[in-house]
């Protein structure tokens, strides 16, 4: 059929030039200690040499019709779950493959859990996997598809800008490996500020961006919206001013798939305009995916070069006057001191905070438990009959469950507040930390594994408590979840024991021993939970602080070295001026390469790729 193998590596003049230019930027970034920049450029250079299928990410706000669009593209209306009330909560990578298979990657595990393709909704949809309680990190789906066979992988992503902030982060993470972005917005209204901000962020790294206007079947005014969008983009996002904007109707495409052969079907197929989208995916990205990767790398090279040039200008300006250097140094030193002072105290401060959280929880537990005992005992004392005896266990269970939920909720809130406060003292905003979710898990208990134990001696065999594995667990991957105090649920009180009580005295002693046993068990679990929460918070904040201190120290070392000796300073200045001169030459070349007409670029790619299947 068509050229699947076009992405294979191979040398060419332009190719070598691109790589050498990028290498210059990378080396310079390394040379002045911007390891972060160097690392991303390196990754892009590597990716350029790969011939694997193009990774095309579909992103946009929730409920714009991303999943539906992908289903239509793959001729599979039921592949991804679609319903106005269901949205995608984790990203799904689709690639060509037979037999069809679903692989689910849970938390930090590298070994996927095999699953049936038709079970996909239970992992990816927000309705069946709310707040991603199943800890799904990513889902891979092998699908038999002619489109995918042409060198394409499609990624469906959770909507950005939705209520669950984790969704947006998932999507941005997916973008960091993407070769191209299909931005999906529906025809219900013009593009909004948050959508444009997302596009701006994405276009820093991704050169190939296609804009798609969905649901044109349902909006008679879609042409106006499309025009308005174009005007807005021209005015506010120069980089995207000339990006293609394709209006599509996934619904017409799906209808065409179901229709009998004939002119009607052809017409629906044509007017769905999915063909335009397909040809962009194939001819615009997949065929020239090497070119797309090159352009992404160039795009990154440009922005990295601009960053470096700004740094050079600042440094040289500072070095030109001794006072400039000195003031920069003292400023950095003050920043570091402040950071260290904060860093010295924060662990003990956190410990203090958390031990008061613990104290509060333990006392809440204590007062709560004795209040439960008192209430139930009073009721027994007031009246005693068979019905009350029968209802005793149930009543206790209700009381204790209510207490548990209260404690769980206040504990989850305290954890959240403590972490926020500790972060604020360190001037670390929540954005800089990996997403953490503090859950009270009462409602989700059914999804966790249970381990039943029986506690208490025979006479006081009051009830069984239920333990779960892991009270506070840090799951790796893009999402950390702390599960607060899930262990207490008193699933089975010893109903028999309650029924065997003969009179009020026995019943009262049953109650107090049952609550007592529950309380001591709960106490242990509470302590364990707090400890787990503390470890997690410490780990997250600690890493962020260390990173900060390391960067600052490095800057200071550098400045100190410079100010200590005129000779070194001169050397350094020479080096940076050299860098700057070199980079000023490189920068326009990068631009020129980016500005190459697509046809020429494709030609180089084609020349560069003598038919060799993807590595």
């Amino acid at each position, binding site marked *: 059929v068509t050229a699947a193998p076009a992405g294979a590596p191979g040398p060419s003049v332009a190719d070598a030039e691109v790589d050498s230019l990028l290498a210059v930027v990378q080396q310079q970034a390394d040379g002045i200690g911007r390891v972060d920049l160097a690392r991303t450029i390196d990754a892009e250079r590597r990716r350029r040499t790969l011939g694997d299928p193009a990774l095309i990410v579909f992103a946009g706000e929730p409920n714009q019709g991303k999943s539906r669009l992908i289903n239509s593209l793959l001729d599979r209306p039921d592949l991804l779950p679609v319903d106005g009330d269901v949205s995608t909560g984790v990203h799904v990578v689709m690639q060509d493959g037979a037999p069809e298979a679903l692989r689910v990657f849970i938390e930090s595990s590298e070994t996927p859990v095999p699953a049936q393709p038709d079970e996909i909704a239970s992992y990816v949809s927000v309705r069946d996997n709310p707040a991603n309680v199943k800890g799904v990190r990513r889902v891979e789906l092998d699908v038999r598809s002619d489109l995918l066979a042409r060198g394409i992988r499609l990624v469906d992503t959770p909507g950005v800008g939705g209520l669950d902030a984790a969704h947006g982060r998932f999507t941005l993470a997916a973008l960091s490996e993407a070769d191209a972005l299909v931005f999906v917005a529906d025809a219900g209204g013009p593009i909004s500020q948050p959508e444009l901000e997302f596009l701006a962020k994405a276009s820093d790294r991704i050169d190939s961006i296609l804009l798609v206007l969905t649901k044109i079947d*349902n909006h008679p005014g879609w042409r106006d919206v499309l025009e308005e969008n174009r005007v807005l983009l021209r005015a506010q996002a120069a980089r995207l001013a000339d990006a293609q904007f394709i209006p599509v109707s996934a619904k017409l495409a799906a209808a065409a798939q179901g229709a009998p052969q004939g002119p009607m079907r052809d017409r629906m197929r044509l007017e769905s305009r999915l063909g335009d989208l397909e040809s962009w995916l194939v001819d615009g990205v997949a065929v020239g995916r090497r070119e797309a990767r090159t352009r992404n790398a160039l795009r990154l090279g440009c922005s990295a070069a601009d960053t470096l040039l700004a740094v050079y200008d600042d440094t040289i300006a500072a070095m030109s006057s001794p006072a400039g250097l000195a003031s920069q140094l003292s400023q950095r030193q003050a920043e570091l001191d402040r950071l260290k002072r904060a860093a010295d105290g924060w662990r003990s401060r956190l410990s203090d905070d958390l031990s008061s959280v613990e104290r509060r929880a333990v006392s809440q537990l204590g007062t709560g438990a004795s209040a439960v005992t008192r209430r139930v005992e009073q009721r027994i004392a007031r009246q005693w009959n068979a019905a009350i005896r029968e209802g005793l266990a149930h009543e206790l269970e209700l009381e204790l469950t209510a207490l548990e939920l209260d404690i769980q909720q206040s504990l989850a809130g305290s954890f959240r507040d403590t972490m926020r406060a500790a972060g604020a003292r360190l001037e670390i905003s929540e954005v800089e930390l990996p997403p953490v979710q503090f859950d009270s898990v009462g409602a989700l208990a059914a999804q966790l594994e249970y381990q039943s134990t029986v506690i208490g001696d025979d006479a006081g065999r009051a009830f069984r408590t239920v333990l779960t594995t892991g009270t506070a667990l840090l799951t790796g991957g893009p999402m950390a979840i702390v599960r607060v105090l899930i262990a207490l649920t008193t699933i089975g009180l010893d109903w028999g024991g309650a029924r065997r009580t003969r009179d009020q005295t026995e019943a009262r002693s049953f109650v107090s021993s049952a609550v007592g046993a529950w309380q001591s068990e709960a106490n242990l679990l509470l302590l364990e939970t707090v400890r787990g929460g503390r470890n997690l918070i410490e780990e997250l904040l600690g890493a962020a602080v260390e990173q900060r201190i390391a960067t600052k120290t490095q800057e200071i070392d550098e400045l100190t070295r410079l100010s200590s000796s005129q000779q070194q300073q001169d050397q350094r200045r020479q080096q940076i001026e050299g860098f700057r001169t070199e980079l000023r030459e490189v920068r326009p070349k990068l631009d020129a390469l980016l500005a190459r007409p697509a046809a020429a670029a494709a030609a180089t790619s084609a020349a560069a790729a003598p038919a060799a299947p993807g590595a």
Partner: protein
Amino acid sequence: MSSPDLPAAARPVAAPVAGPDALCVELVRIIDAFIPVVDAPAAGSGGGGSPNGGSPNGGSPNGGSPNGGSPNGVAAQLRQHRIRLLEPLRVALSGAVSAGKSTLLNALVGRDIAPTGAAETTQLVTWYRGGDVEYAQMRLVDGTTRQVHLTESGQFPDSLDVPAAQIESLHVVLPSAPLLRSMTLVDTPGLFSLRDENSERTRRALSPGGSGYPDVDALLFLLNGQQSEVQILDAFSQDASLVQAQAANVVGVLSKVDQVGDERPPLDLGRDRAARLAAEPQLRLKIAEIVPVIGLVAQTARSAQLRYRDIEVLRLLAGDELVEFLLMSADYLTESESQAGGAGRTRLLELLGLQGLREALRLVRAGCDDVDELNAGLLGWSGFEGLESAIWRTFGPRADAIKALSAIAALQRLSYQLPDHVGSSLRTALEGFLVAPSAHALRELWALQQIVNGGVTVPDWVSTALIQIVNGSGGHARLGLAPDADDAELYRVAVEQAQRAHRFATRPLVSQGSAAVGEVLRTSYANIAAQHGGAQHGAAERAVDSTTAGAP
């Protein structure tokens, strides 16, 4: 913000004393007692502010001279508060660009007056009030006003003869809309607009910096489940100018549920989404209730725009063998060569949308041949009634308390601009007002406000219970009981809850703020218990006698 310069006939009439607005009327008495005191020292200081209430400068003071500082300015502000307290509740329609605010407004007033369309149509803040005479005017940035002549069909003209940049706001009085007798509606340009001047206008209308008085009392917030919407609600809750008990004064509207998918009836789907959104932790405390509505169809049905010729077109369409194909896409309906209905189909599509058109076809096929019947059927299908009752439920019983609470906050701020002894006696008067037993509704709102703006952290059951108390009307709703529960049951539950709230308020290690919230809650339950046969039961006294004011 002052009341606009409307013809006297169009001014709303003050509510009778001891009516449902008792709190506001009481506050007006306090203000009346202070106006002469404040006026006195200003007598010699010129300016000649005639005490006619409203606009002492002849023109509108809004945005122009804030009058801060001088006692005379304070007196003018006091008069403005006085007027506001006797006016209907001000409810703004707010939401993102193209969320359907104007469409919803038209549906609410039952008339196709605000311009609507796919792109950004509303670029000016527009006030809709009730009154006796239909009247429209624009207020210009320079403080002057000009009359606006509506088109023959009662719409705003396509272009006003003044550049938009010079217009501060539009004001309309509509005698025909019953809703406007109870509240003033404010249509606003979309938020998150890429046309910056529009978002700017909205921000100005919703939070007039420094005016010291909220421009609106409550919100109809059109939402879609976006993070940015939560940010807006957060911003409102930090803005001193809107009463912050959002769980009581914000109704969320999912207004385009027909545009998400068509696997299920749109209202069903909308209800599921609304329920899911309402349970979101980020929205739970910020919105009283979320209701789905199909705005476009509600607008069309409410403003009775369908004609017999539309039914003819629907009949033709129903008989067209290609109908299923045509209904696949808006473009097919409007462009197809098939002759059934011709231009009439485009009109129907504009009035009803694709799914609404399908529903209209279904009604016609089922034998509907009367315009009123068709309108009624479509109105029912649109979910408008659910929205209307949510608005009454949420804003109706509490309009008095919401207005009073925002006035108290503003008056407290204002008191610091007065001479010390006058200011402190105003504050004393306000505090006395707040702790009076009759002001318990205010304290409930106050407690909710503490939770919403994060000043007090309480367990979920407390916030849930408080929201129920504040939002419910009648003992059953306030306790969350089924309407058929009898007095004994009501009494039992109320006492139980009062005890639970008491335990919460008095437990060790509880913070002062949450103890106060617990006390308010306990008093509310004790009052319910007392109303439902508490007198016969000894326990009622126990529950009630420890009642102390939980006021700030």
